[in-house]
């Protein structure tokens, strides 16, 4: 077994696009263990920060390094679930198998592993349905199955339930907890305070591209250290019910 890819260290990471600074000198260490919630309002830069960490975007300046120096190896042990899952026009099973194929899993093992992953998210009965005709919640569970099959060390989730109803949201949260229980490091962006409480161990609060506060989840909500975080919690409270 190769050494773990965590921790991930960001030093003075800046990301600018079109003359606008979206991520502003962020320094963070993401360590194995506690589930990390990237919390912030829309436009705070949560999605961009996740994409920088996952390697889909390159920092404009600053440094971002995994414990595993080989970026390709590091990439293979991460997975990301997006707000809107993108499924290929093939069966649910084939979508998971595709991810395994790209990851270099031998053809003979793909189907078994893909079925096991579908089982994990409760989609085995729909294995042979075309993925694109599944409901939004089912597609998001399929995206999680696709990630599960890869046994990632780190799972990035970018507002995975933002476009789902409460029932589907609960199912997704249960699966995320299963990832956590299986030892996968969770890094999730959300603006939903209830979800942050339910799934998070620590909160990184982002505002206007800067990390304003980082704290264990209990302390963040009971005694926020910064006025910005306190205002966000207060302003967002009506959302907790969602």
């Amino acid at each position, binding site marked *: 077994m190769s050494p773990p890819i965590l921790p991930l260290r960001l030093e003075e990471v800046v990301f600018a696009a079109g003359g606008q600074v979206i991520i502003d000198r962020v320094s963070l260490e993401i360590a194995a263990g506690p589930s990390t919630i990237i919390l912030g309002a829309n436009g705070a830069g949560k999605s961009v920060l996740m994409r920088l960490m996952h390697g*889909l975007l390159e920092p404009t300046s600053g440094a971002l390094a995994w414990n595993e120096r080989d970026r390709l190896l590091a990439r293979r042990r991460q997975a990301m679930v997006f707000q809107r899952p*993108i499924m290929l*026009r093939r069966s649910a099973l084939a979508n998971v198998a595709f991810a395994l194929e790209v990851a270099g899993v031998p053809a003979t093992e793909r189907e078994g592993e893909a079925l096991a992953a579908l089982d994990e998210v409760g989609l085995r009965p729909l294995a042979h349905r075309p*993925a694109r005709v599944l409901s939004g919640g089912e597609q998001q569970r399929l995206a999680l199955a696709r990630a599960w099959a890869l046994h990632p060390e780190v799972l990035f989730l970018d507002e995975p339930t933002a476009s789902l109803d409460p029932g589907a949201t609960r199912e997704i949260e249960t699966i995320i907890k299963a990832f956590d229980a299986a030892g996968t490091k969770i890094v999730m962006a959300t603006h939903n305070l209830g979800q942050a409480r339910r799934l998070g161990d620590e909160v990184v609060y982002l505002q206007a591209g800067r990390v304003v506060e980082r704290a264990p989840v209990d302390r963040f909500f009971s005694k926020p250290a910064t006025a910005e975080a306190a205002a966000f919690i207060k302003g967002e409270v009506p959302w907790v019910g969602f």
Partner: protein
Amino acid sequence: MLAAIAEGLRRVFQLDAELWNIVLLSLEVSLSAVLLATLLGLPLAALVAVKRFPGRKAVIVVLNALMGLPPVVVGLLVYLLLSRAGPLGSLGLLFTPGAMVVAQTVLILPIIAALARQALEDAWREYEEQLRSLGAEGLKAALTLVWDIRFSLVTAVLAGLGRASAEVGAVMIVGGNIDGVTRVMTTAIALETSKGDLPLALGLGAVLIAIVLALNAAAQLVKDAAQRRFG
């Protein structure tokens, strides 16, 4: 006019063997050209859609501009290439159906490639992050993309087929409209028109339109069925 078409159709069906040879050759030439242009055009389109390289914008402009290539100009260029003294003269293709396939391939390759490039690029915008996240990049990503939107690409291929089966200039120049060898429907129509046999020309035209309609309808049915099936 309608009477003339009816008269033309009656005459067309009297020609039987000779006519069906013309129809079959038309289909053979145009479908071969579509097949070749698709095999060459789709990978080219996927490459331009997925890869970022210097001069990419220029390639797109040129591809789009080439969609409007005049068939006679393509015919002339292919004629020069294939004529005895030309660089490919030794192949002996000039005035054979092979030369017509080459000319039509050159003519419709930009059409298929340019339209497919647009469709693939739109899809790439949707798929890029997901595919890159899974580790599918470059050729693997391009092939995955082509396969996944294959039913949308049918439209690009049909546009190529329409152009190939409708054009007369290129096949006339490189084929020569030789009776029983390189005469296709469009060149036959041009010939009958210049001979003054308008009813026969009209009848042939009606057959040509019917065939193109049937091919398009079949392709559309396949596309619709597939889209219902796969979403």
